[in-house]
Structure formats: structure tokens, C-alpha cells
């Protein structure tokens, strides 16, 4: 019911919003209300999940904190809206949230027909399968006839259909509205296989009764570039969100971390670092924010590598290796345009 109501809300908001009036820009709105409203998941370990004190942590959450640092100078000025996969775009379209940072796959349909802009890729992912060890299956090609649980309103549902059709196999899909329902049904034995992005599988596995009884199959059946999303119609806000990630990537490439950023600010002779930290050039001005924007991001949240290691890296319960998410200079895909 809550989902229906939120859908009505967007229909109503689109219908009733005064169309002629010149509204304030997103940046002005965020500055005047004093916080960034950030859409996150309803609990996906490593990406966005509330801890026992109710504060949110994760890669997607840290990205929101980075945006708040750049715009408001304070990473704590973020309010979170937990959203199911099904509701996330409506919340953004209706203006309930300023950024959607919720392990969302960038696809052409979403980018071009939902009135949204993807600002970059915070995590290069791919869809995988998890199955009980005692089923003795070692490859996704042996899954013909399986019952598969997944979350509705995701690219996962369509990739699944494509994969099984392309390989001429049968399957039964049971699609649930929220992640927790998917995990519960899988744990109860309703389905043989749970499918979602591989990073998601690593997180969901921790929620199962006996995580060690389950394995993730080696096949990756799709490309899932996950990234933050903003609504159409405000290019300035789009630029800011886009460059927050680029700043974090450039910082990692230049070796600037949250620990050495103050020292670098004082002593560096590297012009690239100077431009990044705002001691040379006025790059913040072009976006309508302070020139020390990138300094604030790195000081408060850290560079991309720090953000990755803290939330999903090998030393966390998720144990995800950098893999394709390493910098381009280290054989990965993460590449940011230069700050100049």
C-alpha cells in the first residue's frame, strides 16, 4: 500500500505542481534547507545499511556524505530516505529526494525515458547467482528448471530472462517487492537460487541463517554499472554530483587521502594536487560552491579507494576485491576526467 501511495504522490505532484513558476535551483534549495535528502536502499550491507544506533553506513551512504561535504561543508548534513527498488525513481522524479544513491544500474531506458541523469559509476558490478552448497551445482549453466528469487523492479529480472532464453533453459521466477522478502523466501527454501548483483549477493549472504552453506556461482551474466542519479532539469546540480565522484577518483590517483590532505594542502608542489584542493584556480565557483569543495570531500569522507576499502573492501565482511573497480592506472575501469 505504501508503494501505491508513493506512486500516487508522484502522479499528484506532476499533475499539481505549478508549471509556470520559476523554481529555485536545487543547489539553492539544498543550501536553504541545510541538508541533502538522499535516497538509499532499505538495507544492503556495504552499500547502505543502518547500524544498531540508526545511523547509516556504506559506499552509497558515503557518497551522499561527500556531496554534503562539498555543498554544505559538513558530511553529517544528510537525511536518508530508504527506498525499495520499485519506488526509487518515483521518489526522485517527484523531488522527494535530491540524489538517488542506491546501487542503481545505469541503463539507456532509465537514463533517457524516466527523466533522470546518471552522474557516474561508483561500482562496476555484474549479476550473479547464489545457491545452496548441497545442491551440488558449480555453474549457472546447470540451473535449468530452477526456481529463482529476485527483487521486482530491477534490471536483474530482465537479465535473468535473457540469460535463460539465450541458453535455452527453463526457470521459474518469483519476484518480491523488497530485498528482505527475497532473502526470507530463499532462506525458507521457496527457491533454489537467489539472483542479484554480485556485490549484493555478498551482502545478502550475511543475512542468511548459515552464510557458509551457500556459494556464489562463477558466472557473471550482465554488466551492472551502479551509480548515483539526479533528476532532469538542473544542470548545475548534475555537474556538482558528477564532479564529487571525479574529485574522489582524482584524489586517489594523486595519492591524496583523508590522512595526508592537510599536509598536502600546505606543502605540495604538484600543480594537479593544488588544483584539486583549490589553492590554484577557482573550480568550485563554476559549480556555485566553495573552491575548497574537493578538500572538504577528502578531509571528511576520503578518496575513492578509502571509501571502497572501508565499506566493501577485502578487510570488511563483504571481502570484495577491487577487481574492475581499481583505477585505470592499475588495470581497472575507474577513470575520472582531469580537474583543470
Amino acid at each position, binding site marked *: 500500500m505504501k508503494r501505491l501511495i508513493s506512486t500516487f504522490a508522484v502522479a499528484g505532484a506532476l499533475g499539481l505542481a505549478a508549471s509556470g513558476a520559476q523554481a529555485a535551483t536545487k543547489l539553492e534549495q539544498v543550501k536553504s534547507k541545510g541538508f541533502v535528502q538522499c535516497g538509499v536502499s532499505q538495507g544492503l550491507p556495504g552499500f547502505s545499511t543502518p547500524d544498531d544506533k540508526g545511523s547509516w553506513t556504506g559506499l552509497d551512504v558515503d557518497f551522499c556524505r561527500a556531496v554534503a561535504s562539498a555543498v554544505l561543508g559538513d558530511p553529517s548534513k544528510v537525511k536518508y530516505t530508504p527506498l525499495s527498488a520499485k519506488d526509487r525513481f518515483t521518489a526522485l522524479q517527484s523531488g522527494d529526494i535530491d540524489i538517488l544513491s542506491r546501487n542503481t544500474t545505469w541503463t539507456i*531506458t532509465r537514463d533517457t525515458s524516466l527523466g533522470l541523469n546518471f552522474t557516474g559509476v561508483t561500482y562496476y558490478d555484474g549479476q550473479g547467482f547464489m545457491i545452496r552448497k548441497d545442491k551440488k551445482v558449480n555453474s549457472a549453466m546447470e540451473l535449468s528448471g530452477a526456481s529463482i528469487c529476485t527483487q521486482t523492479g530491477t534490471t536483474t529480472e530482465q537479465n535473468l530472462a535473457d540469460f535463460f532464453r539465450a541458453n535455452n533453459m527453463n526457470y*521459474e521466477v518469483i519476484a518480491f517487492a523488497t530485498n528482505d522478502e527475497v532473502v526470507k*523466501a530463499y532462506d525458507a527454501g521457496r527457491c533454489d537460487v537467489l539472483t542479484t548483483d554480485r556485490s549484493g549477493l555478498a551482502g545478502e549472504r550475511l543475512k542468511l541463517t548459515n552464510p557458509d552453506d551457500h556459494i556464489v556461482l562463477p558466472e557473471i551474466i550482465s554488466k551492472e554499472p551502479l551509480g548515483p542519479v539526479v*533528476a532532469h532539469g538542473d544542470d548545475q546540480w548534475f555537474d556538482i554530483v558528477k564532479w564529487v565522484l571525479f574529485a574522489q577518483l582524482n584524489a586517489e590517483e594523486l595519492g591524496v587521502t583523508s590522512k595526508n590532505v592537510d599536509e598536502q594542502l600546505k606543502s605540495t608542489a604538484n600543480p594537479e594536487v593544488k588544483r584539486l584542493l583549490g589553492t590554484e584556480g577557482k573550480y568550485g565557483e563554476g559549480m556555485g560552491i566553495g573552491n575548497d569543495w574537493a578538500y572538504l570531500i577528502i578531509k571528511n569522507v576520503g578518496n575513492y579507494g578509502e571509501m571502497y576499502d572501508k565499506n566493501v573492501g577485502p578487510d570488511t565482511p563483504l571481502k570484495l576485491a577491487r577487481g574492475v573497480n581499481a583505477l585505470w592506472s592499475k588495470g581497472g575501469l575507474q577513470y575520472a576526467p582531469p580537474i583543470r
Partner: protein
Amino acid sequence: MTDLATPASGGKTSFINDPKVRSIGLQLIALLAVVFLGWMFVDNASENLAAQKIATGFGFLDNTAGFGINQTLIPYSETSTYGRAFFVGLLNTILVGVVGIILATVIGFLVGIGRLSKNFVVRLLSTVYVEVLRNLPPLFQILFWYLAVLSAMPGPRNSINLFDEVFISNRGIIIPRPLFNEGTGTVLWSIGAAILAVILIHYWSRARQEETGRRLPMLPIGLAILILVPLAAMYVTGFPIGIERPELKGFNFSGGARVIPEFVALTVALATYTAAFIAENVRAGIQAVSHGQTEAAHSLGLRNSQTLRLVVIPQAMRVIIPPLTSQYLNLTKNSSLAVGIGYPDLVAVFAGTTLNQTGQAIEIIAMTMGVYLVLSIITSVIMNAYNKRVALVER
């Protein structure tokens, strides 16, 4: 014919005080206001959608859906269109509605009559049933049937096996499926003919009873016709209807027909929940028939069962039908709680997955609301027609 009711024009009363003109004028203003509001809503919405470059229109119904659905009453595959997915969802909703209404009615009548039983245990059990089930939220009951009952079921390899024909596991209930070979048409026709014959004989025996007072043993005659005629047809055409038995292959059963656990959980939960309310309607209806009616029937020499069937229930129906209609409507509408357990009903398939993939919230929500409205109105029309038939005819 001079009009005495309305004052002649140019009389003492002014034009604005004419009640006829007034009522028409006010209604016109109200209508204009509604039309204007509606137009403003549509105009604003389309302008805002265009400004944000969000796709609009119903063209998406012809696009390929590209997702699977695990219960389809009509042929559907990943390559079918969103329009087809809409009908799959619609039929799944109707299926829950129809099966749920039948089950709820049967349980409701039994429990309702049980509430008035002279037997203490039956009365107590019925009371407990009503008080427990109608006081728990329906979503909670659906989740109970789904998660609590499902996790107690064995996996497909260790299914509960009933005579090697029916298998119950956490994948659902698997039953043998009839196979229709050549000649099935003849058999189906013969079944239709047998039903028609029974109906005709029924009317004839009634007319005969009214004339002569002699009764015909309808039950054995009817059963004999219904069984023997199709059997003869089967024999003549060489038994064209076969049976496909389920077999365990790999992960799941192949062959046979499968009732998915989501359907079972949803239908059972909604039927038992709604039955609690129906039971109370039935009890109220029976109690509304004054005891004098029963006494009068007894003094005419009718037996207890006859009194209930011929005197009490027909009169009770008049009180039961109107609130029963509301319960039927509630059951159909509550079926949208299916999203909680992944049953592919209209809301899950169309207002869920399709909406998310296409992003066309306004069109899809409008269509979904339209469907529930139409389903509810059809139910009301049928029930109102029935109500008219059983209503008290005042002479």
C-alpha cells in the same frame, strides 16, 4: 394544461428565485468546476512530464516486456508485450478473487450456522474462529500462511506424496494434468448435453410435483445422467482424455500441473479472513428471521432441515446479500496485498514491474485503478441482480 406548479414568467418571483433554474444553474457550475479541475490536472501533468522529458502515452503496451512471470493462465513468455503482461496479471487477480470468494462463502456459511448451533463445541469453535481471524490484519495472515507454513514444507525431493499422484512441497502442490487428445470435443459436448438434460428434467419434475404432488428422486437420476452420458461418449471416441503424471527431474517436477505456494497462501489467507466476516453476516441474517416463522413451519409439519432450507434461509438471504457484496468486493481488493509474498497479481506485475521498467506512472496507475473499479462494479451488478431475485416481493 396551465402550469400551476411554476409561477408564470414576469410574475412576482424573480428569475433567480425560480427553483428549477436555480438547481440547473448550480449543477452546471459544479460540473464546470469538475471539468476545469480535471482539465487543469491533465494539462499540468502533461506539461510537467514533457518538461522533464518523461515518456508518455500508451505506446509502451506494445513493447517487449522481457521479464518472466511464474503463473500465467494465458500463453506468455519473456518476448511477449507489456499489454500481454497486463492481461496475465489481470487474470491472476481474477483467479484469486473467484476462488477466494467461493471458498470464503462456503466457510463463512458453515461457520455462521455453526455460531447458532445447539452443540456447545461447534458453537465455541465457530466463535473462536470468527474472533481470531477477523481481528488480525490480513497482510499478517498472508505472511503467516506464506512464511510459517511454507518453511515447514519439505523440499521437492522429499515431497509429501499422496498416492504417487499429488506431491506437496515448498514448490507448491503438483497434480496430474489432463491431456486432451483428438475427440475431446465430442466428450465436452456430451457433458454439456448431460447438464442441459438434468436442468430440463429438474423443471419438468417440479411442474409435475405442483400438479400431482408426486416427487421424483432427482439426485440419483441427475447423477446417473451426469456420469453415464460422458462415460458413453468417452467409450465411443476411444478415451481421448489422458492424464500426465508429474515426475521429479533435476531441481523440480516436470509434467503435471502446479499450484504455486504464493497462490495457495494468498487465497487461503483471504478466504479464511473474509469468511469470518461472512459468518457474522450469515448469523445476523438468520437471527433476523423471527422465531415465529420456524414455529409456523413446524406446525405445518415441515422437518427441521426443510424448515431451514425452505423457510429460514430464503428469508435470511435478504438480510445477508447486501453486506455479503461488500465482503466480496473487499476480498478482491485485498488481493493486491499479493505484492507482499510475490504472487504475480495485477499490482505486482503491472503496477510493479511494468511501472518500474517503463516509468509511466500516470498511465499505469490509471489503468490499474480502472481495472479494480470495473471488477468491483461487475461484482456489485451480479450481486444486485441476485438481491433483486431474492428480495421480498410486496404485494
